[in-house]
């Protein structure tokens, strides 16, 4: 995956859509007619891309979903975040005192397409590990704040369940860490040690980069078995020829032309908003409409 990605504000402020291959940067002023580069937007707003599985695709449904998502984004500010960022979500909860409950945590994973897009926050409270899943377009969510914006070496941090608790602990009253304007998303190259086995999943097979390698070592007979599984091709992703599978890659991604089309729609709706908002910005919260008379 891409380790470098500039902010949505950068792209529009500088008027630059740097080509990933050539690295060109133009100094033209921002304009709404300018097409967004999929190389940028597919990382910033990944939930706008539908599931690449052909049987599940329906262009009309996707268009309607995108319209609904953009409507929701006009009411509430869903900021740019990545797996490894620290978020605080305020949700309206009928059972909580004050009818609102706030939870701060590290974004461990992120997924889903369209209105079903979700993310998971993890934190350790009073020594107890807690994870909560939030659907991004859930109307009961009052606000989503990014406390610390950063990326990690892995797309999925579920292995933190099998790590010492200090790597998942963040105080609930943490202050917002504001980045200087025009900066890129920092990459946290932290390598976390796993606890002694048994683990909840076989992390040694997940190609984890954000884990201390000496805590993941296999016994000699486990290594033999792993190599055997790879060479047999029974598990497709592990097979050595998998990286040459072009059709596999085609089937698991959305073509660039469609991405450009989708994101240009997004840009025309959200364009002004994205230009005004930088990383150093205010948090928008939902204002409850009041009954008059």
């Amino acid at each position, binding site marked *: 995956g891409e380790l470098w990605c500039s902010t949505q504000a950068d792209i529009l402020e500088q008027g630059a859509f740097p080509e990933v291959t050539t690295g060109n940067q133009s100094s033209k002023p921002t304009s709404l007619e300018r097409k967004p580069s999929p190389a940028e937007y597919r990382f910033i707003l990944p939930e706008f891309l539908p599931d690449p599985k052909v049987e599940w695709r329906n262009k009309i449904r996707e268009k309607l979903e995108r319209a609904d998502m953009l409507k929701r984004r006009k009411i509430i500010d869903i900021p740019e975040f990545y797996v490894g960022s620290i978020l605080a979500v305020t*949700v309206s*909860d009928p*059972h*909580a005192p004050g009818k609102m*409950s706030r*939870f701060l945590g590290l974004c461990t994973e992120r997924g889903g397409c369209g209105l079903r897009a*979700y993310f*998971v926050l993890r934190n350790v*409270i*009073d*020594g*107890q*590990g*807690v*994870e*909560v*899943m*939030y*659907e991004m377009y*859930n109307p*009961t969510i009052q606000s989503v704040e990014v406390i610390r914006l950063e990326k990690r070496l892995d797309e999925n941090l579920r292995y933190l*369940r099998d790590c010492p608790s200090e790597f998942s602990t963040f105080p609930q009253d943490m202050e917002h860490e504001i980045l200087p304007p025009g900066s890129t998303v920092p990459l946290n190259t932290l390598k976390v040690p796993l606890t*002694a*086995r*048994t683990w909840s999943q076989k992390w040694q097979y997940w190609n984890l980069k954000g884990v201390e390698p000496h805590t993941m070592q296999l*016994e*000699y*007979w486990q290594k033999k078995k792993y190599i055997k599984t790879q060479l047999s091709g029974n598990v497709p992703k592990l097979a050595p020829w998998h990286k040459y599978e072009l059709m596999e890659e085609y089937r698991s991604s959305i073509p660039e032309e469609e991405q450009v089309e989708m994101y240009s729609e997004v840009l025309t709706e959200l364009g002004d908003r994205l230009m005004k908002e930088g990383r150093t910005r205010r948090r928008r919260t939902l204002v409850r409409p009041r009954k008059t008379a």
Partner: protein
Amino acid sequence: MLKQHLGSLVSSCLPRFLRVGLNPPSSSGRRWFHASTPALHIMRMTRLRVVDNSELGKQAMLEGKPPKCIGIYKRVQIGNTGDRIIVAIKGQKKKAVIVGCKGKLIKPLVPRFDTNNIVLVDEDNTPLGTRILAPIPHSLRAKGEYSKLIAIATRFV
């Protein structure tokens, strides 16, 4: 941290170092028992973690003999947060309320805990301890019968 294993009967026959969760040294020639993935449900035979400061609960957790679920007050014998269950703890039968589950993250806004937590209670849902030491989900407030539990809770999620 409690680990759930389907072959709980098997694990009781294994030597102590295997139960604790370490791999045997390669030189010993012993193999690690490969069990199928554990069912992330609270059902009969599930070992649980007592999260209040009752004497009975503290003693049981210290000794390394955690309470075991032996019955669930539901038609479907699968326990979730907020269900009442019977546990076998230190040779006694006690009622308990599940306050945290280690199940998969399926439902949004429902918190998932790293351990299966219970609070020991009486017949009329009066807790045996005076404080609950782990965070509890807000959803327990929905059932009026757990008001005494809520009163002794320290933190909510």
